[in-house]
């Protein structure tokens, strides 16, 4: 319990630091929402007047404080570009992005675990060599390329889905079907990485003394693998998969644009160029939370699997 408390406090502290850094970095870049909004109509005087009107001239810490207190009380503020409540603006987009990253994660786990077991059993055989080569290839394919490929094959040629026309979350069945393709694009290289990692961990475990002892005692290899090796390999795998979440989120931002998924990715890019800091802050915090929360969850799960971990950083 004490351990859980420590983990959650660390999560909150990380979130605070992330939001502060994002805010500071954003204040450092040239231009403000005023210039962005005025575009080619901007003159120095006009921009100054609009900055004043939007409250962008107030000191940095004051604005951050205002944003933070709003955030804590559940008010994400008003978008400077859309003049709309940020929470309202982002709700569906956040859900779409989180759904997409969740689906990618599920695909990675569903493919990588059985595949790596398959590969471990065939270790050093011809299948293993083929796998190593193929895996190397899949790991190095960038998600946007897989995305383009999938869009052309399944979207344009086979017409199984319509890239660029996301049906919306109000039709969950169709939305999930649509998101399956970007999820595959994100999952392919990461699943390959996971297989490689799992294979390594499992093989290392298999070479340990206790495995040899168990087998020499008469247990058969498969039951040792299932009963002891898998359990021991579980902790590093959970930690690895949690770290994978950061890469999945990065993949989501890229792949969303290829498939035309109206998620947080495009909104983040556009809001940065519009200098719309309430929106950027909100998105950064949502994405960071998703990543940090995954890691915290992994820590908590691992402690249940192996309680010794909680003692290690006492």
């Amino acid at each position, binding site marked *: 319990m004490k351990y859980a408390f420590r983990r959650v406090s660390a999560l909150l502290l990380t979130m605070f630091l992330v939001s502060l850094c994002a805010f500071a970095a954003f204040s450092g870049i040239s231009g403000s929402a005023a210039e962005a909004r005025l575009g080619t*109509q901007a003159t120095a005087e006009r921009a100054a007047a609009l900055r004043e009107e939007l409250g962008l001239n107030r000191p940095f810490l004051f604005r951050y404080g205002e944003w933070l207190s709003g955030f804590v009380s559940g008010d994400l503020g008003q978008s400077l*570009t859309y003049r709309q409540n940020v929470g309202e603006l982002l709700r569906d987009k956040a859900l779409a992005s989180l759904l997409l990253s969740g689906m990618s994660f599920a695909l990675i786990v569903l493919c990588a675990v059985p595949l790596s077991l*398959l590969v471990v059993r065939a270790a050093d055989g011809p299948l293993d060599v083929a796998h190593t080569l193929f895996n190397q290839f899949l790991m190095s394919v960038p998600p946007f390329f897989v995305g383009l490929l999938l869009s052309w094959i399944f979207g344009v040629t086979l017409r199984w*889905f319509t*890239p660029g026309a996301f049906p919306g979350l109000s039709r969950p069945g169709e939305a999930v079907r649509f998101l399956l393709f970007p999820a595959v694009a994100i999952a392919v290289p990461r699943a390959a990485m996971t297989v490689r990692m799992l294979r390594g961990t499992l093989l290392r475990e298999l070479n340990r003394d206790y495995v040899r002892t168990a087998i020499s005692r008469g247990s058969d290899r498969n039951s040792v693998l299932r009963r002891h090796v898998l359990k021991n390999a579980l902790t590093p795998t959970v930690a690895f998969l949690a770290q994978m979440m950061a890469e999945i989120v990065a993949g989501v931002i890229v792949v969303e*644009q290829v498939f035309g998924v109206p998620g947080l990715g495009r909104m983040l890019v556009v809001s940065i160029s519009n200098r719309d800091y309430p929106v950027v802050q909100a998105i950064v915090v949502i994405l960071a939370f998703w990543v940090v929360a995954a890691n915290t969850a992994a820590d908590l799960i691992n402690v249940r699997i192996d309680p010794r971990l909680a003692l290690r950083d006492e």
Partner: protein
Amino acid sequence: MKKTFLALVLSAAMFCALLSGCGSGEPPAAGPELSVGIAQDLDSLDPHKMVAAGTKEIMFNVFEGLVKPSPSGDLLPALAENWTVSDDRLTYTFNLRPDVKFHNGSIVTSADAVYSLERLSATADTPADIVTVDAFSNIASMETPDEMTLILRLKEPSNEFLSYLTAAVIPAGYEEQETMPVGTGPFRFVSRTAQESVVLERFDDYWGGPAAIKTVTCRVIENADGILMSLQSGAVDLFAHLTITQAQQLTDDFRIEQGAMNLVQALYLNNAVEPFNDLRVRQALCYAVDKQAVIDLAFDGFGFPIGSSMYPAFGKYFDETLIDYYPHDIQRAKELLAEAGYPDGFSMTITVPSNYQPHLDTAQVLVEQLKEIGVNAEILPVEWETWLNDAYIGRNFESTVIGVDASTMTARALLERFTSSAGNNFINYNHEDYDRLFTEAQSCTDDDEQTALYRAMERNLTENAANVYIQDMADLLAVRNNLTGVRFYPIYVLDLYGLRWES
């Protein structure tokens, strides 16, 4: 092991079957709906606050002024059915079209027109984000003798005043324009989802009769691959401003219509910094640049070369003789550079907003061409907001490739910015004759005379090599084959009114 493998294969196969089973099939060929792709989201929904050309392009269908532009560049009666101008050309009397309705059902009256014009006039308490119309400072008074009559009295006669009355008329006192815009155009605003889509619907009470298309969904697609994909997959039926490469990749389902972008694309030079403060250097650059080669290399031959801050759609104002004022002449360019004290050339940077691929492509070709006269140009790609802030507002740049548009269909809209005192004179052009010609043109009462003055201003820009003018870029528009009625305008708009599906 074999079992696991088999299970995997089987589940994969089932999965595919499931997906193909509920495939969406062919896109609807004909119907009352239309999906238009747009490359950027709208910057504001309030017609008096929108700045981006891409926003006005779409909202042209939602808002109208007293008059509206025609595809040939004339002004047609819109909310004003007709008007008279007094002999001293100071008093305009407009008779409003009776029974025109706003999208919210209320009738358009002269009070709404007055409200709209006042909202666009700069006063001390005008909000900073209203894009004010300077020409309205010429209005001495507005009178509304009755609900259908509007009398405008001007301080000075102006030949161009009418063209500014294309400004949107909105309901008096209505405060929700920014979230739920209300106008009088053939389409009414339904909804928007940020960075996703804008939905418009046919306004059945439109004074000119309802449009053929019932619902128009404008989908925001910024990604270059996404644009092609969305056309090919059937997500989008029409997409304007495609690149040559994109247009060439489209299949037989589409035809490409070619118009003009109506932009003055040039290598804009900061006339206030060294070495561009020297006329000979600027002229040398003009001689060194081969615009036709730029068009051929970067745009596959699509584009119209220009020689000053005016493009062909402006008809009588466009002076063709200026196009070849500086023929491609390396020798002459080198001589001029030597005279100016740069016999070995110099180094310069070309700042280019990196979100505009055509401008980047142009800059690439320019770099090569300038090498021939020993000028070592380097491209500095910057984000659009940085470009606006540093180059455009801050005027902190050496040279930049950009396209400048005309906000209204007046020569003034293109030429006024280069007067020495103009707030948007980002190249710091400063020429007494030019300022004088502009003042004369403004007080000029005769249209022919004024046209001549504007042409003289264009010539002044060319002779003084204010910028290295390149082209009015071609506008390539992909339309699904059975969609007809595309009309091009001399300004940056997409007219949805005439579009219809042929069966």
